[in-house]
């Protein structure tokens, strides 16, 4: 995982990335978990398969599934909002824990 935080504009902004080791790729089950987790944060959260984007709304299951992310792809996250740091950290943790059923997952 790598991450950085900046605060240039009005809202805090955080970036991070993680490798999708989940077998098969970002299938329905992990994609649902990812969007549900993203929705728990106030921040706007974006996801991409490359550092330069294109960026996708990480709170939309339709958009996240349509990325058709394969196994071993690198997922990049950007969040913008008061809880941006916490959002990117949580998403990276979810991906790196292989979408484990730990906390209040569903």
């Amino acid at each position, binding site marked *: 995982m790598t991450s950085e935080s900046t605060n240039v504009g009005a809202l805090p902004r955080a970036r991070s990335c993680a490798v999708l080791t989940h077998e098969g*790729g970002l299938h*329905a089950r992990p994609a649902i978990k990812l*969007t*549900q987790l993203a929705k728990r944060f106030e921040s706007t959260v974006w996801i991409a398969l490359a550092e330069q984007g294109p960026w996708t709304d990480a709170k939309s*299951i*339709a958009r996240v599934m*349509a990325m*058709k992310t394969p196994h071993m792809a690198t997922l990049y996250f950007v969040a913008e909002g008061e809880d941006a740091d916490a959002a990117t950290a949580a998403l990276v943790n979810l991906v790196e824990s292989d979408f484990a059923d730990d906390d209040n997952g569903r």
Partner: protein
Amino acid sequence: MDGDTTAVICLRGTSVSPGLARGPLIVVADDTHSASREPGSAEEESARMHAAIAAASVELEALMERAGDDDAQTILAFQVAMLADPVVAEPAFAAIGRGDSAEDGWHAAMRLQISQYHEADDLYFRARASDLRDMRDRVLRKLNGAAATPIAPGSIVVAADLPPSRFLEIAWDGGGVALTHGSPNSHVAMLARARGVPMLIGVEDADLRGHSEAIIDTDNAVLVLSPDDKLAVDFASRQQGAEILRAEAARYLHVAAATANGERVEVLINVADAAELDAFDPACCDGIGLVRTELLLRDANDIASEERQYQLYCRILRWADGRPVTMRTLDAGGDKPIAGYTIGGEANPFLGMRGLRLSLLHPDVFITQLRALARAALQGPLKIMVPMVTSPREFDRARALLDGAVVALRKQDIGCARPELGMMVEVPAAALAIDLFEAEFFSIGSNDLIQYVTASGRDSTPLAPLQDPLQPAVLRLIREVVQRADAQGIPVSLCGDMASDVRCIPALLSVGLRCLSVAPPAVARVKAAIARHRVSEPKA
């Protein structure tokens, strides 16, 4: 029987979930079309749209509560999440704003979603298109007020295709499914296997009017309409027998196979799709005796991509966890065309360009596969098997291409190992002259061997009686191959349907085979059949 005089009809299909079922026949038709109506005002249509989506969500959530297993819940959770995502319905509301009906708007919105999946390279994502059609149709039924056809428990359901959420609504209780379309990789096939509901796909079309009862028999891959008394009695006794055998076989699943007098027999599995491995514990088998790579690799993209193939092969080797895995190179042609690769328009494709013949015609494609296999061989004991070999010269050419691919990889400093190279024995010319082939192992492909020995096509129903695997001609030829291979110290196995057919096990053991590769669901019953058999003389 109920005394009606409707004639018995047998319709052939392909079995994707095993079992026997008998019950009332229910035909599920497409119920999403409604009479066209004038759209109401934008406000009215928008309210109808909201209400239909909400009602569909409520139904799906109720189904989720009852679904029980993880796979079913994920299928339903995906639809619930999609319905809750404003991105999905947005184009529908936009169209309604322009004066469209809610139905037209929803169709357009779903077309947009579905189009993102049905052309996907990855099979998993491609299969999501059917989940989305399922979701689309549920909302359409809510819009037009149609109730889904009610289905009594224990019914035999016949449909073009059955969406997963419909499947989950039905109390199967001994019933079964016959689809005129369908795919073995679809969610509904997976659910049927997981729940033990017998299922056929690709069933012949027929006029079903007038029939009220049906039998699904996946042993013979037939849907029988209006069975007569004789068929019904036969069915009942087979169902009872199957029940007893299943209970007995389950005891053998986790034990290494051995005959009644303690001679060890290796039982491996045949694999067509990496996904089917997830449901099978590798500890229950001695490895994989046949990976049908032509079914693993679906299209021209897969065939051209060394990297994609390498990933697929590595995944299978990781699953096997140190057990041997025999990968068969592309066996396309015959009844398995691949666009842009196989030759179209052959008068007799089973006697034409297929298997190794095609590979030697397209050496670039063959070398790509050999490179991916040699690289994957670093992950575990991988063997390569070539199909449809007729003459020793063809096999020598395959070996030269493999050796060349390994040398090229080493020159490029790409990690690889030289896998053992063996061949399928399925052409009579090869079987009769087996001692002339310098292969490192042999595997008898009984399906093709039988069709070529008996000169009767595998796809021909009226010729089926000629294709009895237990006839002397076939058994003598198999015995000949096994004895010659044994004399030369070359391992030999059998990987055709014959090995999964428990009636054939005593004969296969008596002709000297000690290694069988079978369909995963057959492992327990094959091991049980081996345990019942006493080998009369020690194998010399």
